[in-house]
């Protein structure tokens, strides 16, 4: 890739840090994202109330978390359960809430989609990427969404076209643009490489 290449729509993820000004904090984490949550508590224990939603995979951090977030911890067994739990607590939240999300890109944008329906905008959410660089892609031909693409070219889950994974990102869809790579010369594919491990 060219030096200096950059696309405005591509999200930039940062390391989570507490907002000093807040009336409450909400942390939403999945898998390795929980280490980021623990890192936040290493920075300091905020004075405001904290709610932590955590969807766990294999490693069980619940015990450790219970010590640092005695009140407000909700450990869920899947992303689906976490999103349901999030929908249940959001109606009680007021302006002054600061939101932090840590996990894979797919998780971050699934959470953002739910938050949007409660008036929390993309720019209001602090996000840290963990676990993987895998991309969700949106097929511009059949409009299907395909998750966990780790290669420069991926097969569409809808129409099975081979799609080139672009850097253009839709915050609305939480996905990168996928464009048929061999439309001009069917079957002629460049080398498929893993670039989003």
């Amino acid at each position, binding site marked *: 890739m060219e030096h200096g290449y950059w696309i405005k729509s591509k999200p930039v993820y940062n390391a989570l840090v507490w*907002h000093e*000004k807040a009336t409450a904090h909400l942390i939403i984490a999945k898998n390795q994202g929980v280490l980021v949550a623990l890192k936040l508590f290493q920075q300091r224990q905020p004075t405001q109330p904290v709610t932590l939603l955590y969807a766990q995979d294999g490693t069980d951090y619940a015990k450790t978390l219970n010590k640092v977030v005695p009140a407000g911890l909700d450990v869920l067994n899947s992303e689906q359960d976490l999103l349901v739990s999030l929908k249940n607590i*959001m109606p009680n939240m*007021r*302006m*002054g809430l600061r939101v932090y999300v840590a996990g894979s890109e797919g998780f971050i944008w699934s959470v953002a989609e739910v938050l949007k329906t409660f*008036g929390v905008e993309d*720019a*209001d959410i602090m996000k840290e990427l963990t676990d993987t660089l895998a991309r969700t892609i949106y097929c511009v031909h059949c409009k299907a969404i395909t998750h966990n693409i780790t290669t420069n070219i991926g097969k569409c889950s809808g129409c099975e076209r081979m799609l080139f994974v672009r850097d253009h990102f839709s915050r609305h869809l939480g996905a990168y643009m996928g464009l048929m790579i061999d439309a001009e010369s069917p079957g002629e594919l460049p080398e498929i490489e893993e670039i989003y491990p």
Partner: protein
Amino acid sequence: MSMINVKVAAIEQVTPLVKHFTFVKEDGSSLPAFSGGSHVVVSIDIGGRVHRNPYSLMGSPMENEAYHISVRRQENSRGGSVFMHENVTVGMPLKITYPMNLFSLAKKGRKHILIAGGIGITPFMSQIADLKRMGANYELHYAFRSPEHGAFAAQLKESCGDHLHCYIDSNATRLDLEALLSDQPLGTHVYVCGPSPMVVATLETARNLGWPENHIHSEQFLSPPIGEPFKIQLARSNIEIQVSAEMSMLEAIEAAGVEADFLCRGGVCGRCELDVLETDGALLHNDHFLTDSEKASCKKIMPCVSRAKGERLMLDL
């Protein structure tokens, strides 16, 4: 910059200090559409010197036959508002810029809290027309000195009903910003327009309560302050210009026949920004556009409201 030729169709004294001017196109055609919160820059010729002041459009964006602005008489200023009050008469032709919006409503907002102080009510007049058309959830909090200074309060009461909350200094009713902003639903946006202490207090209160920056909106046009005269050098035009005490740098540049970019002329939009090539004195930044570090770097200046001290200020123009 292309301008619209209008004429004054009506003038109404709204309060002891505020006049409402209605403009129509000189050729009788329709005016360009605009969105709530927009303003125009009105050019007036005072004894051969052109003043250009920004004023919010306060009519409904649905109406394109006429534009409405209101002007508060400012005694200790450079004379633009006094001229508007005393010399502008019905039928007089004027030039205005196309409308532009630096104070637009956040379309994704779920609730809108509008806070106005005095003449700061004007941008909200057009925004309310938009909010009502959108069926949006809003509250208008309007503070003024005494009942006779509450411009358009009766009209607003009629159009906004329970959405309007008035605070009148002389009745000792005060807006409690902390209470107002500490219990609002997620997705609320706050907008403030009024005197500087009110704008600062609103921004600080919202920030301290943890409101995200993109939910906080303000507009405060500055008029170019009167200051000490100083000299500027324009590198590309290769001329030296004297900026008099009552003139802004931008006006002095225009008077010298050099074309410079501008939009709001009130230190807000950033369009007139100039690069400083050399300076031997302090830059007196008065704008709301440059960041503190940009101001400290002495590399940029907004000639619409800022000034300088010293003998040498070389600009890239």
